């Protein structure tokens, strides 16, 4: 399931660069024009595509028709292969377990996700501390390592534990309680646990090889990580699950577009409420980048797991609680949420704290 070994990093670097870094003189262009490109220091296809055709005409000192035909030739070679949606589906059905899904064994959630956590994309778990994100991750790790006839992927897992929250004791407990038949067999616990590799980086830079220098802004660094993680998921066709923290978002004022602002101002004063809720960290760019976002929250004393962002699921919220065998859904039908409510993150404790603070002023 996951590529193990030392070569995987270089393989992924290779994948990403393969297309764009083809040398101009290896692309089969007529010698004369290829030489002109090189003479003007345009060595790779990427260099050529990073200039407009007009700029190339000026730089290479050739006519427009020559530039256009050379660029057409280069573009055809660099552009990605053409597939059809049917081909994609058939490949997945043929090659992958459950057409590319890892079942979470939470019936309602799996149904909503068309089988389970999808391969090839990034799934994010976001919620306040202590809500159950790590519990969910532990269970998923186990599920991926289980044999296929028990609903697993019979594969290996890489668990990147940034906050040192991984507990092997808890993992075995979940395994024993959820799959007693497997875990009571001699040596099975060791085999399953042996398939999960835990990496504990002391800092992010340790495991993420960055092409940018340390002076790069946070946005740029994040952008690079986003591309890398997404490419990783896609090329290897594995599920990638990550957890994200929350931060508080005070007040009722949500961001609006300029055309909305105009109509709002005519409506009169909106009463300011002190309803503080939480938002996912890392901002709107990151929110665009993840494919599936599962929000875990606590509201009115109950915990919910919500499909806040999922291209193929209705906006459902499932109540859950955590038992010795991990996360368990209390209702498999889910509650359909209207509107942006599906994306908001509530936390009982946080609200109470905030109100106390305000009262103090």
């Amino acid at each position, binding site marked *: 399931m996951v590529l193990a070994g030392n070569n995987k990093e270089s393989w992924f670097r290779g994948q*990403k660069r393969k*297309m*764009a870094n083809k040398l101009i003189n290896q692309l089969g262009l007529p010698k004369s024009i290829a030489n002109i490109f090189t003479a003007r220091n345009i060595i790779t*296809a990427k260099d050529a*595509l*990073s200039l*407009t055709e*007009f*700029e190339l*005409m*000026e730089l290479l*000192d*050739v*006519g427009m*028709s020559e530039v256009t035909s050379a660029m*057409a030739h*280069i*573009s*055809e*070679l*660099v*552009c*990605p292969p*053409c*597939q*059809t*949606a*049917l*081909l*994609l*589906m058939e490949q997945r059905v043929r090659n992958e377990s459950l*057409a590319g899904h890892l079942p979470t064994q939470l019936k309602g959630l799996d149904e909503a996700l068309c089988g389970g956590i*999808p391969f090839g*994309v990034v799934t994010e778990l976001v919620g306040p501390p202590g809500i159950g994100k790590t519990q969910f991750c532990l269970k998923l790790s186990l599920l991926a390592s289980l044999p296929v006839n028990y609903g697993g992927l019979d594969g290996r897992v890489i668990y990147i534990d940034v906050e040192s929250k991984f507990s092997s004791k808890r993992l075995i407990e979940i395994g024993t309680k959820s799959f007693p038949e497997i875990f009571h067999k001699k040596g099975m616990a060791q085999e399953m646990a042996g398939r999960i590799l835990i990496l504990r980086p002391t800092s992010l830079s340790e495991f993420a090889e960055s092409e940018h220098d340390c002076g790069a802004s946070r946005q740029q660094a994040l*952008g690079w990580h986003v*591309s890398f993680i*997404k490419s990783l998921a896609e090329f290897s066709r594995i599920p990638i699950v990550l957890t994200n923290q929350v931060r508080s978002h005070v007040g009722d004022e949500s*961001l*609006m*577009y*300029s*055309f*909305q602002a105009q*109509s709002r101002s005519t409506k009169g004063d909106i009463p300011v409420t002190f309803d503080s809720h939480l938002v996912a960290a890392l901002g*709107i*760019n990151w*929110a*665009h*980048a993840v*494919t599936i*976002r599962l929000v875990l929250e606590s509201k009115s004393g109950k915990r919910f797991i919500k499909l806040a*962002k999922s*291209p*193929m699921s*209705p906006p459902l919220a499932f109540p859950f609680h955590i038992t010795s065998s991990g996360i368990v859904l209390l209702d498999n039908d889910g509650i359909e949420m*209207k*509107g*942006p409510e*599906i*994306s908001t993150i509530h936390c009982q404790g946080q609200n109470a704290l905030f109100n106390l603070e305000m009262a103090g002023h």
Partner: protein
Amino acid sequence: MEIGMLPISASKRGKLLAAGYTTLHSILRTSTTHLARDIEVSESEALEILNFATRSSDLDKSSGSNANVIHGGQTAWDMLNEERFSSLITTSCLDLDNILGGGINCKEVTEIGGVPGIGKTQIGIQLAVNVQIPLDYGGLGGKAIYIDTEGSFMVERVLQIAEACIEDLSEYSHHFYKDNQAFGVKMHPNSILENIFYFRVCSYTEQIALVNYLDKFVTEHKDVKIIIIDSVTFHFRQDFDDMALRTRLLGEMSLKLMKLAKNFSLAVVMLNQVTTKHIEGSFQLTLALGDSWSHSCTNRIILYWNDDERHAYIDKSPSLKSASAPYSVTSRGIRNSTSSSKRIKMV
């Protein structure tokens, strides 16, 4: 000056000027041999320059006639006649189709932007399916190109929407042609999936290369009637230190897309992300890629939340009125909003 109009290299232009050829007329008066000698190029190159010059001046001569005065120009009357027969692709939401004047316009570039989870990819997939609605049912019977830059194209969802579309068409035909079995919809969801050409783009260079290649691709697949780019923003948001270069590249890319839309009479739909901008003392939402980019599309639609409902707002269009319409995302795809109280709002 006129020499500047000729599509020749800068050095040849320089040579012409240095040799005293400052106007087209001066070039036309001379012969190939003389020109070749004067500017020190081969005879074939000189002939090429003469041909360019002849073509340019021919267009000047025909200024008396009505049509095509300038190469590539068209009178407004001709355009009006063309526009009347322009094809529209339904969004499956009646309210949305209404504010769009019937649907997404072929021959135009439409940008659709909104916050994560509002339904951009959903609309993209719905259009990729709807373009295939057969002519008998008022559709275009065309194919779609889906350019995926973020990996958000989920095949499971395409299947859901395709199946729902076929069911709706069957219901429609059953309703109108109760006795006539021959009008049964013979489409299978798999054939809908087969007619969506899918490209996964992993960098901005691939994106630019693909847009360049589309001219050849669409020439070979003339039944493509829509190109969807989901999203046009993603690769241009990271990796770019030189913002001016980014603007130039985006500008060229959008020009190429407009040309594709016009030449092949297909719709180009670009999905865009949002970002925050500091305007007039507060932070506001705006579509990504900057101010110059906002000039690059013909129509611009912003998807947003209005209380609990999804709405689409026509932010920019040369022919459509600024209006807002509600829509919803269901298990069957994009549909009308279920709430009856909020209807189309004219702004």
